[in-house]
Each structure stands twice: as structure tokens, then as C-alpha cells.
């Protein structure tokens, strides 16, 4: 007989719980700092959208300049590249971000990002402690899954920031949902740390589940961009029609990136991770082949992974071949992400199939 899987180390599990609660406290501080960022930022006057849209009719949209990278010698007078955006998109500059260009707002924004990074480290330590306490991948039940999910989402956001991508606009939303996710995880989904059922004893757990979590977290970030795109696009359309949106809407929308930027952002994210999602499903099928004797059996979880996959394929098609840029494609993307979320919460809790394991 193989040695019995080690019993859970209760001490480490307890430490993991403390770490998770601490990270929630720090995320809450980050949340408050983001709120302060938005409040101070609201004192700025932006109004670039209207200026750009009305100006565009008279003089043609201002072109965006892109400087070549690389430190070659001819830096001083090297040729400048002029780009023109594609037809059908408005030539609107990106908003200045939540801080609205105000110094105080920016300060709070920086504090928020630092706190988020700190909370991320604490949460990640919590995940590692949990994994060590059971000596296995920390993905045996929904509690652990939710924990890793938010850690990866925040990690992806921080990586984007490190890559100097313009993503600080999503800080507040991200921190809010992470708090929500952790709240749900600790109150309703909590499962004491323990060993796995035999069906999960497989290295495929590491492969299949980790990629599933990464895809979910990144698709979440993409969906946030899509949702804001819809709001921002509505806002730009109203201004284009000559309407004057309310003060609050203006204050928030003016600070977001332009609709075209948001749209491109979420398309890139979704397209970049669609192959990984494809891989996740195939890895799952291989594992199912080993564990259950069939590669594909239309178990609810399999069905919804498939639906999610087809929905994302539909979205990519809409953009690549049918020329459905914009709102229609955005609705498809949101539908696809809704399928993903349902596949996670709905299918695990409401429909039980072979994927229901110990403690939800």
C-alpha cells in the first residue's frame, strides 16, 4: 500500500486563515485609498472627449504619435511615426485615470496600488500556507479555488502595471470584486483544509486546474474592460449626438480610457488567453480519460466549459471575420464570461455532476 496521504497540518492551515483575513483588511484599505483617489480626481476638469469629438469635425482628429523604442544613436532627430486609427472608431484621447491628473488623487492612487501589492503578497502567502498544510495543490474545493482565483486576478493586474500598461483605471473595481470574492469564500465556501478524494490524485490537477484559474482570472479582467467599454462607448455616443450626460457620469467617464482603447484592451486579453482556455479543456479531457474512462461525457462542467469556449470563439470570429467591432462583439464577450462564472458557481453548487467534490 502506498503511504497514506499526510493528514492536514492544522497549524499551517490556521496561519493560512489568518493571512487571508489580513489580506482582506489590507484590500479594504486599498479600497478606501482608491475611493479617495476617485474623490480627489473628481475635482479636475477634464472634458477632453467633447473637445475631441467636436474638434474632429472641423480639423480632423489629432493623430497619436508613437515613438520608436530602442536607444539607437539617431535619437535626436529620428523619424516620427504617425498613426491613424481605423475607420469607425472615434478619435478620442484616453482619460487621465481615476486621479484626474490631480496630485492628491495621484498620491492616493499610488497608495492604493502599493496596498494592493501588499495585500497580494499576504494573500499569496495564505495560498502557499494552505498548500503546504495539505502538501498538495491548493485547488481541492471551491474555497481554495476562489482564493487562488482572486490572487491570480490581482497578480495579473500587477503584472500589467509592471509592464507599464494603462490599467490603473480598473483598480477600484478589481479590489471591490476581490473583497467580494474573498468574503464569499470565507463565509459560505469555507472548507477546512484536508486531503483530496482519489479522483483528484493526479498531476493533471496541477495542469488543468491551474490553467483554468489563470484563464478565469484573466477573462475577468477582460470582462471588466468590456463592461467599462460599453459604458464609455454609450457616453461618447451621447456626446457625439450633442447630449450632455449628468455630472457624475461625466466625472467618472472622462477619467476612463477611451472606448476604443478599452475595447482593444479586452480583445487582446481575451484573444491572448483563448488558446490557454482551449488547452485547459483538452487537458481536462485527457484527465477525464484517465480518471473516469471517457474523454468527454457531457458532464455539466464539461458542457459549460464547451459553451464558454464556443462563446469566446464566437466573439473572436465576430471581430476577426465578420467585422463586428464594438457593442455587438462586446455583448458576446460578456455572454462568454457570464458562462465562465456560471460554470464556476452555478454548476458547482446547483448542478451536480462528476466535478462535485468534497465540501463543494
Amino acid at each position: 500500500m502506498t503511504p497514506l496521504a499526510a493528514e492536514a497540518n492544522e497549524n499551517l492551515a490556521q496561519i493560512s486563515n489568518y493571512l487571508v483575513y489580513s489580506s482582506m483588511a489590507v484590500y479594504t484599505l486599498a479600497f478606501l485609498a482608491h475611493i479617495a483617489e476617485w474623490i480627489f480626481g473628481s475635482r479636475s476638469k477634464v472634458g477632453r472627449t467633447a473637445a475631441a469629438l467636436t474638434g474632429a469635425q472641423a480639423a480632423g482628429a489629432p493623430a497619436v504619435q508613437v515613438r520608436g523604442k530602442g536607444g539607437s544613436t539617431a535619437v535626436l532627430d529620428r523619424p516620427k511615426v504617425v498613426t491613424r486609427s481605423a475607420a469607425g472608431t472615434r478619435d478620442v484621447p484616453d482619460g487621465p485615470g481615476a486621479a484626474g491628473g490631480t496630485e492628491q488623487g495621484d498620491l492616493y492612487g499610488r497608495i492604493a496600488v502599493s496596498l494592493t501589492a501588499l495585500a497580494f503578497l499576504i494573500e499569496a502567502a495564505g495560498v502557499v500556507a494552505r498548500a503546504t498544510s495539505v502538501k498538495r495543490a491548493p485547488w481541492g474545493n471551491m474555497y481554495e479555488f476562489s482564493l487562488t482565483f482572486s490572487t491570480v486576478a490581482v497578480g495579473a493586474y500587477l503584472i500589467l502595471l509592471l509592464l507599464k500598461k494603462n490599467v490603473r483605471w480598473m483598480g477600484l473595481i478589481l479590489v471591490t470584486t476581490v473583497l467580494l470574492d474573498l468574503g464569499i469564500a470565507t463565509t459560505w465556501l469555507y472548507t477546512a483544509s484536508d486531503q483530496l478524494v482519489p479522483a483528484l490524485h493526479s498531476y493533471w490537477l496541477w495542469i488543468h486546474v491551474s490553467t483554468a484559474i489563470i484563464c478565469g482570472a484573466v477573462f475577468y479582467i477582460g470582462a471588466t474592460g468590456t463592461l467599462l467599454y460599453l459604458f464609455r462607448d454609450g457616453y461618447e455616443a451621447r456626446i457625439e449626438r450633442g447630449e450632455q450626460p449628468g455630472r457624475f457620469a461625466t466625472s467618472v467617464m472622462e477619467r476612463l480610457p477611451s472606448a476604443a482603447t478599452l475595447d482593444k484592451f479586452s480583445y487582446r486579453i481575451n484573444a491572448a488567453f483563448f488558446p490557454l482556455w482551449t488547452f485547459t479543456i483538452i487537458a481536462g479531457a485527457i484527465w477525464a480519460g484517465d480518471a473516469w474512462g471517457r474523454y468527454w461525457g457531457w458532464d455539466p462542467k464539461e458542457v459549460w466549459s464547451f459553451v464558454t469556449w464556443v462563446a469566446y470563439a464566437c466573439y473572436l470570429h465576430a471581430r476577426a471575420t465578420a467585422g463586428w467591432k464594438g457593442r455587438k462583439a462586446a455583448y458576446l464577450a460578456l455572454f462568454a464570461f457570464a458562462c465562465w462564472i456560471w460554470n464556476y458557481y452555478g454548476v458547482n453548487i446547483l448542478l451536480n455532476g462528476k466535478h462535485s467534490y468534497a465540501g463543494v
Partner: protein
Amino acid sequence: MSTTDKASPEASQQPAASARGDEDAAAGAQLSTAPLEDAPGGPVGIGVLGWLRWFWRQLTSMRVALILLFLLSLASIPGSLIPQTQVDAMKVATWKREHASWVTVAEKLQLFDVYSSVWFSAIYLLLFISLIGCILPRSWQFVGQLRGRPPRAPKRLDRLPAYTTWRTDKPADEVVAAAGKVLGGSRFRTETGASSVAAEKGYLREAGNLAFHIALIVMLVAFAWGQLYKSEGGKLVLRGKGFSNTLTQYDDFKSGSFFTPDDLPPFSFTLDRFDASYAKTGPQKGTARDFKAYVTFREGANGAPHKREIEVNKPLEVDGSKVYLLGHGYAPVVSVTDPTGKVIFKDAVPMLPQDSNLTSSGAIKVTDGYKDKDGKKEQLGFGAMFVPTYAGEGKGTMFSQFPDLDFPALMLSAWHGSLGVDSGLPQNVYQLDTSKMQMFKDDSGQLFKQKMLPGETMTLPGGAGTVKFEGIERWATFSITHQPGSGLALAGAIAAIGGLAGSLFIQRRRIWVRATAGEDGVTVVEMAGLGRSESTKLPEELAALAAALHQQAPTAPDRPVKENVEGERG
């Protein structure tokens, strides 16, 4: 819905500029093999052929493909909400009982077999016909494009999505030659003309895209093949007993339409030992930790015996078939004597687990050899309930407290009469059909029941015989599946991921460089780029290439570059 406008940003959006738009379209021509959409409208030409052609065009158009794709995702949803025969026939039966009024409608709509239903099949067949009709012609077209050269530079480069210009003292022909070298050095395919260079890169994108779609077709073929030739059977094996792979040995068996029993590879095995371990403590006390079946395995009709182990995630592979460990349970060993004291039955009877602590139920059926006190032939039946860990006397119900054999107990209720096994109807071995049986009654006239510990004996009322609980055996269930085509499906899947990555991460783009002698004898260099879809990469790449060319053709001194950021637009 035009598929060309991404290649030529202005072609459809600005009718006023349509003349120039056409030229841009030429520059972007064949940048992808995406099909041109037919104008909506009825068929051209008359008769059946015209309609057929129209129908084919519609089916292979991107619009219809997109709708079919979306329909496919919607159509697979009901199967996750309503139980499927293919997945769990028991659940289907329960659902039918609970939703009696819906059953006819649901059956008409094939809602219990969504994934083999007519409507689901129709959608994916149409989708795949569409896919073939769309992808195969594109593959040939793409092969043609690979042999083609990048198209000549459009007249007005400054209208393209990324553009740059400067003036240099180098003669125009030297600039053109240098541009050809720079672009070629960056692995562009180049075509040098008199005063301009055309270059293109990223053919792998299209190749990846085609590979992905063709891989989808390969996967579908593999699934269909597997479906037609597959076989799948289940077998419960008691410890010490064996199984040999012939049709008659299976408890249940399903197979595809083209399967023949000859496809079953000959092998046999006996179950020597079965180990299960469970969490003894902690919040998930009782959940399984490890299962392992130790078997002696023989390949072929009379091959040499080998010791093998089968675990949940580690099936045994034989000649294209796999043997999986599915479940396990207990089989109390029971012996029955007739009124004369003769042992007429002694067997291990498998019980079906009811919960995770292996509370199990079953039936013991004594079909032959029993005669009652008066010498009349009869059959005996016992409803059985087995718990591996009994809660203890007076502690409520007969539910097991733990899945291991800590305190096993067997509860029997006794019947006599006809078991109904000879009626020809298939019977559930775990259930007693008491319709033609009478109860053995206890003193108070109730059904005679007794709980026994191992080694205990119960005496049937009226001297009708005895039943002894001799001991406990284990059993394991195995599933033996033969799934041809899975290797092909896997190859298709891997090709699909590779192709997809190529199609999503590689940009196909063109760069043009033109150098012309200006009126004051200074050469004007212009560079422009055009991509399949707008991308931040393209301007960056153009800037890098411009910087490289600029080193060889630096800006003419004393004449600063005019930064025409605006003005140039039409």
C-alpha cells in the same frame, strides 16, 4: 458586413474617399484569405442549381457560420440542466417521475439525449460543412498567396495606418537598396521596384488559422470514428474472482454501430486484493483517500500471469483497451440451510453502496434447492442492508458511520415464494421483487427482520431454516473501454492549439518604402505599414525599421523634418 474593411480602413466608411479607398484596398488585398461576403439577396440565376449555389454560399458565409457557432453554444445548454440518459439513466428516471407532465414534450424534443438529438446534430453538421466549405478553398488560395509577391506601394503612403517620412541626402536608388536590405534582414519577404520596396511578413498567421480550422475537422472525424467503433462495458468483480474479456462476462455493455465482438482484445484478470483507505479524523472524516486494486493479469487466451495494480487515475492499458477502477463495496458472505439443516446456498452477495460511508443495500436470492418443511419447492429472498461501521445498539438507524469495516452489521428481512426471476423480465439484482412472495412473520405478525454481526446466525420462523452471516468480501467495479480515434483526436487538439496560437499572436503586415528625388535635390523617404488588424505593434515595428534605415540615410542637415502630424489628411 464586409470582411475587407479591416484591411483598408477607409474603404467603406468614407464614401467620399472611395477612389483612394480602392487603392488602399488593393494594397491590403490578399492580406488575409478571409472570404468576401456576398451581397445579401436572393439567388442569381434560376432553377434548382441557382438555389443550390445560393444555399451553399449562404452556408459557407461568415455570417451564417457565426450564427451556427452561437446556436451550438446555446444548444448544448439544455443538456446540462436536464439529466441525460447517456450520463446517468437513473437521474433521468427520477426526473421523469418528478416532472410527469413534461415527459412527453421532453421526449419529443429529445431532451434526454440532447447530444445525439436530431437538432443538435443538425447544428454541428451544418457548422462543419460550413467550415469545410469555407476553409478548404481558403487553403488553396493561401498556397497561391505564398507564391505571390507583396503588392506594389499605393500612391499615397501617408494614408496608411502607420506612416513616417524624412528627407535625406542619400540618392534615391541607394535608399531603396538599403531599405530592401533592412527589410530583408528583418525576415520580410521583399519586392524591390524602381523607386520603392514592398515587403510582407507574418504568413504564419494565416497558416496557423487554417491549421486550426482543419484541426477542428480532424477532431470531428476522430470523434465520429471513436463513436462508431467504441465499446464500453462494466463489470463487478469480487475479490478472488476473475473476469475475461468476452461479451457474455459484462454486467452491462454499450457499443457503437460498427463495433463487432471480435474487436474485444482477449485478456483476463483476477482481483487478488482491494485496498481502500479513508480519512480517519478531521472535517472530512470518512472521505476516501486511496483506492487500489491488485490484479493478476493475463494477456491473450492463455498468456503468462502478471501482477498489476489499478488505481483511480491509473487505468490498465491492454491493446487499445483500458481497464478503469470505478467503484468498490462490500459483499457479505451468507449461508442458508433448509429445514433439514442442509446448506443449500453459500455465496458472497455484493451490496450497492447508498452513501459515502458505504451504507449498502441489496438482495439475497436463493433460487434453487430450497424445499420447505412440507417438502414443497420454493424460493427464498432476503432484503439486505449492510453497514461497515454500525452506530451501536439503540443509536438510531442503520446508517453506517464510517466506510471501513470497524463494526460491520447485516440486517435481513425474510421472504419466501417466487422471486420472479424466471419470468424472462430483466431483474435488478440488488432489489427484491416481492410481488409474488410472502413475508416470514415474527411473533407479532410483522415482517421478520434481524440484525446480525459476523458469525451470527438467524433462525427463520417456524423452523424454515437458518441464515448465517459468515463474513465479508470486497468487490470492485471496473469499466473496460475501447476508444479508437482518441490518438487522432489528441493530435488534432494539439495542432489546434498550435494553429490557434499562430493565428492569434502573429500579425500579418506589409511595409512599403518609397524614395523619390525632391525638387531641391534632396531625397524624400516615405515609409508606411498596414496590418491585418490595427495593432500597437505595427507602428513600433515601423519605427524600429525607420530607425534602422535612418542610420543609413540620415536626415539631411539644416533642413529639419517638417512634423506633419495633421495637415496631410484628406
